[in-house]
C-alpha cells in the first residue's frame, strides 16, 4: 500500500470530482480521508492505493489535472508517519470482559463504552496494527468496526505545499 496526499480546494463538489475520477479511470482505492487544513480554504485528502507503479503514476497525473487539486505527492513509507483511528464494538458478556481488556492493554487501545453485552474500543495505529488488533478480537465476536482510513504526514521538515 502507498499513500498519496493531496491538497484540494475546500468547497462542495470537490469530493465528487475526485471520486468520480477514480470510478471512471478504474483506480482501486483502499481508503480516502478528507479534512480541512491550517488554511480553511484548503482541504487535505489522503488516499491509500495498491503499490503498483503504473497505476500510481496515472493516478498522480490524473489527479493533478483536476482544477480543484492543488498539489499531489506520493509519500514513501519510510519517510512518513501513518495513523488510522478505529472503533471496534465486540461482544462481551461479563466473563469475557477481563480478557478483552488484557488484549486492549497490550495494543494500547482504550475502552470508550461498555454495555451489558458489549465493549467498544478505540485504537490508533498504522493499518497493520489495527488489523492485528481486530484479528485478536475476532474470537469474541465483532459487532461493528468503524475506521477512518489512513492519515499520513511526512517526517522532518518535508511538507506538502501548493507549488
Amino acid at each position, binding site marked *: 500500500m502507498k499513500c498519496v496526499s493531496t491538497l484540494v480546494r475546500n468547497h462542495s*463538489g470537490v469530493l465528487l470530482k475526485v471520486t*468520480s475520477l477514480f*470510478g471512471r479511470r478504474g483506480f482501486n482505492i483502499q481508503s480516502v480521508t478528507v479534512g480541512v487544513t491550517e488554511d480553511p480554504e484548503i482541504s487535505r485528502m489522503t488516499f491509500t492505493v495498491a503499490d503498483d507503479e*503504473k497505476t500510481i*503514476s*496515472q493516478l498522480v497525473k*490524473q489527479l*493533478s*489535472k483536476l482544477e480543484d487539486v492543488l498539489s499531489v505527492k506520493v509519500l514513501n513509507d519510510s519517510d512518513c508517519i501513518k495513523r488510522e483511528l478505529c472503533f471496534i464494538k465486540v461482544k462481551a458478556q461479563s466473563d469475557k470482559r477481563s480478557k478483552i481488556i488484557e488484549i486492549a492493554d497490550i495494543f494500547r487501545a482504550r475502552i470508550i463504552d461498555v454495555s451489558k453485552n458489549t465493549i467498544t474500543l478505540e485504537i490508533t495505529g498504522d493499518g497493520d496494527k489495527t488489523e492485528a488488533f481486530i484479528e485478536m478480537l475476532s474470537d469474541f465476536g465483532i459487532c461493528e468496526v468503524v475506521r477512518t482510513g489512513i492519515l499520513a504526514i511526512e517526517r522532518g521538515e518535508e511538507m506538502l505545499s501548493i507549488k
Partner: protein
Amino acid sequence: MNGAQYILNFLKEKGVKISFGYPGGAVLTLYDEMAKMNFPHILTRHEQGAIHAAEGYAKVSGEVGVVFATSGPGATNLVTGLANAYLDSTPIIAITGQVNSTTIGRDSFQEADVTGITTPITKHNFLVKDINFLPSALHNAWRIATEGRKGPVLLDVTKDVFAAEISSPVVKMDEKAKRYDDLHKIVPQIVKELKKAKRPHILVGGGVNSNECRELLEKILKRLNLCVSTTMMAKGVIDENEEYALGITGMHGKVAANLSMVHCDLLLAIGTRFSDRVVGNGDLYSEKHKVIHVDIDAAEINKNVPAYIGVCARAEEFLKALLIVLEKEDVKNLWDDWKSKVLSWKELEKDDVKISGLLPQDVIKAVNKYAGDRAVVVTDVGQNQMFCAQHYKMRYPNRFVTSGGLGTMGFGLPAAVGSAVSNPDNNTVLFVGDGGVQMTIQELATVKKVNLPIKIFILDNRCLGMVRQWQELFYNKNYSHTILDDNPDFIKIAEAYGIKSAVLDEKSDLEQEVKRICEEKEPVLVHCRLYREENVYPMIPPGKNPEDMFGRNNRKFE
C-alpha cells in the same frame, strides 16, 4: 447590471461572434437580455444540435464554441456533445440554466443535477447559485477551456442568478500551474535517438492541428526527408497531396501509414493520445518499437503506450525546439532506403474493386475534385467517416471536422452548421450516412433558416454500414437490426424543409453532377444511392496491432 447581462457582456468582450442554443424556463432572463442586446445566437432545433454546432464552429475557427441550454432536459441533451468535445479536446463554454437556488434539491420541475452528471465529461464545471460568484466562475471557466489541453467547461447557473443585480463584480482568478518539460535538455537527446534509428517514423495527432504547427512540421520534414502519417484528428495538418504524406494511420488507416508503424524502429509521436483506434494494443506495440511520445497532457504519456522517452510540451513549442536543433544537423540522406521502402508501400493501396453500383469512395473523390482546396469537410460516424478519412485529400489544417474519440452518430449535420458559420467563403461539405443523418435530421431547419450553403451528401447504403461490416466479418453475417430498408424518402424530406435536392446513383454523370452541386450558393441535400455491401478496407481487427491489417478478400500486406 444583472447576471444575464454580465454573462453576455463578458462573452462579447472575449470576442464571441456567435453562440448556439435553445431557450427554456430557467434561461428566460438570459434569452430576454440576448434579444435586447442583439447578442449573436443561432437557434438549433435540439440542444444536441446546438452543442455539436458549437463544436464544429470551434474546430474550424479555432475559437471557443459557446452553447446555451435550459435546466433539466435542456442540459441533459448537451451530455453527448460535452463527452464528444471532452474526448476531442474542443474548447466549449456551455451555460445551462438551473432551477432557483432556493428550490435546488427538491426535485423541482426541470431539475437535474447537471454538475454531477457532467463531472466525468467536462474539463471542469461550476454550479453558480450566488451572483457574487458568477464573475469568478465565468473568468475561470474561460481560462480552463482555453489553456493547456483544451476542453469543455460547463456553468450551471440558477435562474435567480440571471436576474440578480451585481454592482461591483469581483473576479478571483485561480491558477493552475502547468509544468512542461525543459525542451533544451530533452530535444537534443531525441535528435540523438533519431540519428541512431535505422527506420524512424513520425506520427502527428490532433495537438498539431494548427497553421503554426503545419509550417514548422513542413520544415522539419524537409530537413529529415522522412514520411509522416497522421491520426484522423490531424487530417490536413500536412497537405495530403504531398508525396511524403502517408495519410491516416489506425484501424482503417492507409496501408503505407500502417506498415510504417509496423516496420519503423523508432516512432516519434507528437500531439496524439494513442487512442486504441490508432495503435490497438499499446503495451504490445511498445515492446517492439522505441516510442518517443510528446503531448501537452502529462497524463497521456505512458497511459496507453509505454514511452521510451516521454515529453510533456505544447506541440508548437516542441516543433520549434526540434527545428532549431535539426538546423544544425545534416540528416538528409540518413534514411533514403527506408523512405523509398515506405513510398513503395503506397503502391499496395491500389484497390481492385469490381462492383457495378455507386461506391462511397467515388462520390468522395468527385467532391474532393470540385469542392475547392479550402472546403471544410464534415463527416458523421461510421463508414462515411472512414471512407472520407481515407479518400478525401485535405490540404489545410482545421478543415476536417469529425467526431473522433466518442464516435457520435448524429454529429455530422449540426457540426456542419457550426462549421459553415465560421467558413462563409468556402464550401462546407458534409458526408453522412442514412443512419446518422436521421439522428439529428431536425437541424435541416437550422440549415434552411440561416441559409447555410452546406452540401449534404447522404451516403445511403440502406444500412448501418460499419456495424453491418462488423457483423459480416465477426458475427457470422447475422445482420441484427442494421438493415434500414424502411428509410424515408430523403428527397421529400429536403422538400419539406425547403431545401434543394439532387440524386446520385450508378446512372448519374457523377463528375458533372457533383461539379454543379458544389457550385450552388445555397444548401443542397444530395441523396447518394449506394451499393449496399461495400466495406471499409484495410482494417486492423479490434484489439490487434497494425501488423494484423487485412484488405479486401482477406488480402495481407507485407
